[in-house]
């Protein structure tokens, strides 16, 4: 009875996971398949295999501009966001002070704000200070969006650090800066790499805020929408596949480094 019950639960859970994957991956795989399809309109049966759409985007200077913008934005904002995230996580780890909870809540706030509202607020603010439409605006906006993710990842790693090891470094003659450089940063390094990849992926994919503040410096998601507004064009599938592979790679790298965290953290039990 019990075993049969377990089997049933097992079956239901497995089907559930299967369905989740089906819903997530069907559109992506469809897009991937049609990106190699010669027909202009997505329909079954498929036409012949072609690289024509990849050729189109390869020869389109607008796509290259967008890729360049996206990369600049993603790299800059991931570095900034990881830097800020590290500082917030470290202050949380190291110090106790009045209103610390308020400080942490504020640091984690951005993802809880609806993107549209955030995007509008950013647009209003950047127009006011006259930087709207510049690439810096997109970088700043994405940094704000990404910093909490970086902080969360780095904070988890810091929580695994034995508090004594930083003090041990001071005790062995390291200034606070030297202890930071030789002990704290090496310890959290996997989380820093993970945070860089994760925030890069978030920035690379982000559409709403970029659409509002990017002006002529279009990122890839903004470009995709623009092409779509014009007409239905299978080159979208090709761009989509490219974006999907880039993002997935970054997220997988982030996950791999994130998993290193348990290894290497000192535990004090002895055999």
């Amino acid at each position, binding site marked *: 009875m019990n075993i049969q019950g377990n089997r049933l639960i097992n079956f239901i859970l497995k089907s559930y996971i299967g369905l989740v994957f089906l819903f997530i991956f069907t559109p992506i795989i469809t897009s991937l398949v049609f990106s190699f399809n010669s027909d202009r309109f997505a329909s079954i049966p498929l036409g012949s295999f072609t690289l024509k759409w990849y050729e189109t985007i390869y020869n389109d200077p607008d796509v290259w501009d967008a890729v360049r913008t996206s990369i600049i934005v993603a790299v800059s904002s991931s570095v900034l966001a990881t830097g800020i995230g590290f500082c917030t996580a470290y202050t949380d780890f190291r110090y106790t002070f009045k209103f610390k909870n308020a400080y942490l809540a504020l640091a984690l706030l951005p993802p809880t704000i609806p993107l549209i509202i955030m995007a509008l607020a950013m647009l209003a603010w950047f127009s006011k200070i006259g930087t709207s439409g510049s690439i810096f605006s997109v970088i700043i906006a994405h940094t704000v969006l990404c910093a909490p993710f970086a902080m969360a990842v780095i904070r988890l790693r810091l929580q695994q650090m034995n508090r004594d090891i930083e003090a041990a470094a001071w005790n062995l*003659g390291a200034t606070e800066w030297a202890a930071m450089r030789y002990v704290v940063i090496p310890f959290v390094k996997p989380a820093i790499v993970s945070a860089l990849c994760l925030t890069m992926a978030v920035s690379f994919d982000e559409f709403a805020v970029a659409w509002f503040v990017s002006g002529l410096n279009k990122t890839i998601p903004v470009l995709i929408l623009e092409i779509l507004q014009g007409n239905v064009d299978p080159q979208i599938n090709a761009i989509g596949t490219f974006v999907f592979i880039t993002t997935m790679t970054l997220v997988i790298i982030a996950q791999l480094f994130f998993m290193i965290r348990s290894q290497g953290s000192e535990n004090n039990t002895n055999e």
Partner: protein
Amino acid sequence: MNEPQIEFERITKRYNNTIAVDDISLSISAGEFVAIMGSSGCGKTTTLRMLAGLEVPTDGEIRLDGKRLNELKPHERETPMVWQSLALFPFLNVQKNVEFGLKTRGISPDMRKERAKKWLEKLEIADLSERRIDQLSGGQRQRVALARALVTEPPVLLLDEPLSALDANLIVRMQSVLSRLQRDLGITFVYVTHSQSEAFAMADRVVIMSKGKIEQVGTPQDVFRRPASRFVAEFVGSNNIISGTVKSIDKDILELETSFGAVFSQVSNNANYRTGNALDVVISADRINLSTTDLAGNNVFQCRIVSEQFVGSIVSLLLELENGQEFRVQKQQHELDRINLQSGQTLWLSWSTNHAYILDSSSNN
């Protein structure tokens, strides 16, 4: 007497409303092995951390070689520490861990390697130098922590319960490693522990702390045989503490009236005891003799065995007098074989008048 190397002068450490260390003064000479002992929360670790600069005293002055330390940051002091958690750097191998203190002092890589090697050899872990920390056993990690702290050849080594994570066999081995190391190097060891056996086995002097205050400073023998207060007498374990009132004093023999009869103790002639005063008398568990026949004389009481416990070659007995007063007695196994003990048997316990130590009544309030 040579100049003290480390001095705590009226040191107090307060956190918000709680006092961790309460107005303590302590001098330690160069080359001494001092153990600070007490139960958890007594302020012993805070005292050590103040010496390392990890806590700043609220009041008082700490000096090393006559130089005031209070304002120095941890990295400006030569007071390396062996941590209870060991606090080895998990992302560095053994060699790099040991080299750390040299690296922060700007010593060249070649020199670092050479000096680290010397200490790795001294602690018999040279063959592990390329290992990661998580590939080491508890005892090996302990040695790495020691090498890392000693590699800068400091005048003082601080040890914060370094053996608490090890199993019993290893503790005894590391104790002899530490004792030998301290003798060979001739540097000062300040050792914090809650374990009486560790403190007594290694230290030249023991400092007993309770509730942020120092209860007694003395050699292990002093603390064991002549506890300064009832707290110390209870803390150092196998003592019998008897309360009573002074009935008479005849020359150097004091007669104490207790719940189970008259107890006689030797006192020095000039001691100031008055008839009617309340007193505590301490008799060490190992100072009590047992006999199967009634011996006439003072300090002899009939009793029966409540329980016995073997600890290696030593047997701990719990005895009870007719009125319920309990006595703890420790005997060598071979001594007990001689009197052929049987359970439920009636025995007589006794002690000599000069083995009953009178606690200083002023410290008991």
